[in-house]
């Protein structure tokens, strides 16, 4: 303790000050040392970390999405293109308050809760500093409003992108399919790198089947951007590789002819060029405007489509399977010939009905209801096809048995996928004893063979399968996988060929004869089509029952509700001497084949009028059947 002097002691003061100065200098040195250590840690020890972070701050890798391949018809008519569209994106890292920004944006332009939900989901899967889309297809006015408010919305980006557009909407809806926004599941399956910056993917149809070709490959650019996300300059650029363009074998005019011929009825038309396997038309009505799906269809629009009784989203041409009815008969005839059970001359007695030995049940011929008797005393193959004689084929079916029937019909493409280059194809049903055991765990009854002989019962085929089978017939056994796409970027993409169906020429001639008679014969079931025709057409009518008709009752079209009427079917090819087109047609609840056959005429007329390759020689005289 210092003595309590009241006098100042300069010596002591000076000494104390000296000590305190030394202490202070020591403190200063220690603290400066601490600071220096801190800077040393940041700048030397952790240099790499911060250098990387600074680089990442400065340089952003921006994906450059590729342009999706265009789709043309065979004549170069544009069926799917890309149009510039503006979208609103948010860069999370640059937004001070995301919630407030979202509320602000909602005040500026309509942003639905669905948009925000999708946005939030996407937010978690996005790399830092990558804009996440919130709204697509901004209008001119919305863009202007955003531009005005831009200064108070940091991190909000308006970007131009190319968006899929289908100029013909409904006409090609089922032929092309459509693209839509990538959903969560797709995001997991798609290549993450290649789809950076791409927000749409093929969902259905060609758009999905050829996704890899149409998409192309993503490019990148390294850009230097400031803290507000504004790009200052591009440092490095790897251009994207555009998606390749598809040329379809579809013909706009034929598609249109089929579409218009179907009118407002529900149905499907498939036309194939038997020489190449290329599809000329693929129509299912009603269709829908595929453009609706590109940007996320509104739920009300979607439920309207989904809940419609006409099921417009259902692609009848490839997903719809129907009993082929009498259209199976030419193929049955071929089976008979190949099995050796019949020849073109052999006949069957036709009283108008048929019954199995030892069974009282009568299998009626459709003619019985009309004339009260059979087609003729005895019926040969040509007549059986031309007049669609059921008894002839009941007998053939019984003798053939269901399993051999299965084996002979299989090469025509029934009962399995045709392998067409689009999605959602159905197999249909080509029954056999094995099939029934597997599918229904039941054994086969002989009576079922009888109805199978005229395409009723378990058998189901899509319009595409009918067209493919007709094409195999028209090309005398040439089997090709049907193809919608003819060329990729101008490079031809030939349809894969399958082992042909070998048969002697006279067999083909015999069936062709019968099918010609259907159209050109005096008693042909589609003889109305021959009026004014300039070429020879081979065809076969068919009717598929929608409701079971009791043993002795008579089907009365007028009394049956519209949706319970029979489906009308028709298959055809032309010209007979060198077929260039084969069609399969169904008109749901058309009442009968007469609803379907004129459509074939319209489609084939259009094709032969424009088809430049095959010379259309007017048929002067026709041999009456």
């Amino acid at each position, binding site marked *: 303790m210092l003595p309590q002097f009241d006098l100042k002691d300069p010596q002591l003061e000076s000494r*104390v000050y000296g000590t305190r100065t030394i202490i202070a200098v020591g403190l200063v040195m220690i603290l400066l040392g601490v600071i220096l250590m801190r800077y040393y840690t940041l700048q030397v020890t952790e240099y790499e970390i911060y*250098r990387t972070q600074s680089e990442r701050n400065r340089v952003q890798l921006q994906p450059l999405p590729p342009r999706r391949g265009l789709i043309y018809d065979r004549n170069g008519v544009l069926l799917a293109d890309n149009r510039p569209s503006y979208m609103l994106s948010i860069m999370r890292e640059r937004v001070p308050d995301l919630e407030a920004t979202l509320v602000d944006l909602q005040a500026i332009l309509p942003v639905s809760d669905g948009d925000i939900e999708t946005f939030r989901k996407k937010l978690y899967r996005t790399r830092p500093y990558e804009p996440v889309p919130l709204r697509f297809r901004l209008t001119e006015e919305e863009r202007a409003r955003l531009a005005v408010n831009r200064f108070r919305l940091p991190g909000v980006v308006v970007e131009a992108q190319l968006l899929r557009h289908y100029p013909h909407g409904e006409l090609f809806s089922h032929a092309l399919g459509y693209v839509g926004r990538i959903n969560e599941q797709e995001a997991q399956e798609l290549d993450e790198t290649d789809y950076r910056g791409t927000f749409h993917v093929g969902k259905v149809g060609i758009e999905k089947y050829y996704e890899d070709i149409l998409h192309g490959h993503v490019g990148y650019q390294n850009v230097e951007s400031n803290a507000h996300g504004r790009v200052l300059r591009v440092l490095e650029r790897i251009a994207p590789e555009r998606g390749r363009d598809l040329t379809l074998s579809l013909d706009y005019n034929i598609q249109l002819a089929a579409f218009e011929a179907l009118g407002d009825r529900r149905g499907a038309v498939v036309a194939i060029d038997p020489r190449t396997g290329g599809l000329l038309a693929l129509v299912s009505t009603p269709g829908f405007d595929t453009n609706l799906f590109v940007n996320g269809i509104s739920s009300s629009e979607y439920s309207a489509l989904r809940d419609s009784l006409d099921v417009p989203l259902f692609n009848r041409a490839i997903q719809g399977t129907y009993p082929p009815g009498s259209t199976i008969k030419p193929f049955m005839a071929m089976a008979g010939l190949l099995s050796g059970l019949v020849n073109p001359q052999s006949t069957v007695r036709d009283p108008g009905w048929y019954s199995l030995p030892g069974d009282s049940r009568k299998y009626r011929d459709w003619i019985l209801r009309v004339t009260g008797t059979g087609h003729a005393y005895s019926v040969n193959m040509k007549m059986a096809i031309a007049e669609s004689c059921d008894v002839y084929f009941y007998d053939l079916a019984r003798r053939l048995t269901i399993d051999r029937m299965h084996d002979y019909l299989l090469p025509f493409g029934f009962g399995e996928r045709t392998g067409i280059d689009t999605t959602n194809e159905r197999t249909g049903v080509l029954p056999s004893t094995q099939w029934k055991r597997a599918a229904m765990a039941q054994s086969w009854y002989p009576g079922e063979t009888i109805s199978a002989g005229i395409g009723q019962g378990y058998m189901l085929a899509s319009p595409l399968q009918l067209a493919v089978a007709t094409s195999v017939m028209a090309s005398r056994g040439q089997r090709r996988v049907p193809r919608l796409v003819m060329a990729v970027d101008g490079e031809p993409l030939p349809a894969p060929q399958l082992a042909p169906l070998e048969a002697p020429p006279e067999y083909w001639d015999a069936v062709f004869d019968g099918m010609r008679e259907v159209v050109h014969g005096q008693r042909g079931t589609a003889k109305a089509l021959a009026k004014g025709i300039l070429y020879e057409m081979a065809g076969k009518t068919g009717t598929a029952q929608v409701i079971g008709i009791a043993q002795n009752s008579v089907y009365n079209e007028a009394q049956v509700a519209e949706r319970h009427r029979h489906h009308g079917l028709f298959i055809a090819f032309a010209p007979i001497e060198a077929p260039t087109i084969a069609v399969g047609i169904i008109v749901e609840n058309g009442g009968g084949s007469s609803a379907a056959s004129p459509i074939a005429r319209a489609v084939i007329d259009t094709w032969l009028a424009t088809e430049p390759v095959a010379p259309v020689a007017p048929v002067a005289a026709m041999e009456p059947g």
Partner: protein
Amino acid sequence: MGDYVRQLPHHGSRDMARRPSAVMRFHIDVPLLLLLLVLGVFGLLVLYSASGQSLEAVYRQGSYLLLAFTIMIVAAQIRLQQYASWAPWLYVVGVLTLIAVLLVGVGAKGAQRWLEVGGFRFQPAEIMKLAVPLAVSWFLAGRVLPPRFFAVIGAVILLAVPAGLIVVQPDLGTSLLIAASGLFVLFMAGIGWRYIFGAAVLAAASAWPVWLYGLKEYQKQRILTMFNPESDKLGSGWNIIQSKTAIGSGGWEGKGWMQSTQSRLDFLPESHTDFIIAVLAEEHGLRGIILLMSIYLLIVLRGFWIGAHAQTSFGRMMAGSLTLTFFVYIFVNMGMVAGLLPVVGVPLPLVSAGGTALVTLFAGFGVLMAISTEPPKAST
């Protein structure tokens, strides 16, 4: 001034008298002046880059510097006794203006810090940065040193009143700096260690209640952010993350003058004011930091040297306090930018852009020069 020459022991000897007299006459401390000039030029170079190569910003800061140097020279001419006699009056005026600020002050962002007189705005707290150490030094200089209990109490009241007035503005940072400048005087006066330890214990004990009741939410946030800037990357953590990135990415050599991407691309906020050292660190690396710290250290050492050679205890205490306060600026700024200390609005002396702080600082250096060139007492 004339007094000084007359009192020289070798009055009349031209050889001995002439050289010191040239600078002594103008009361210039040459080492300090040179160091400040070097630092000022260095600061302008950094600012040129940090402001995005704005010559305008450099001219503005240059004119502030010119003004500041002028004020320093003028302040150096005033005799120390004069300061001592002005100290109580300056202090009283300062406290009154602080009260006026609370009543009629203007401000921004919820804080009232400015007083507007005839279209001229000034911050009374700046006056206190000089007035408090002057007043405390004056108060203690007249008493027995090391200070006794009542002297300590009196000194603490002297510094607590303005500190309290500033804390309610609210401006915690400035308030702490001003309190510190007063406490430094006490420390240099040789206050007993029991006071120092007692204060330390008291501070530690009151830390938790102060955290709970004393600090505002944004102040707590700043402190939390310092410990974990990643917790709020885009909010309060942004500044620290970006400044650490800027510093760290400079490495040893730096990216080169005007090559700071963090600042040029606007990632670094306040890059030409409080966070300017991050730009320096990014562009000139650890080498630049060491150079800057060396200059600062030399200035601090020169300050202590001046204090140690002062003629009066008033001068000693003032010199010590001014030097330590100057060091606190450096420490707090460099520490906060590097994420060691919470973010408070403390500029980096002579480098950060801004005029007000510079003027106060140089007025302090002026006082320091006055102490340095104080004539020895006529009688011992």
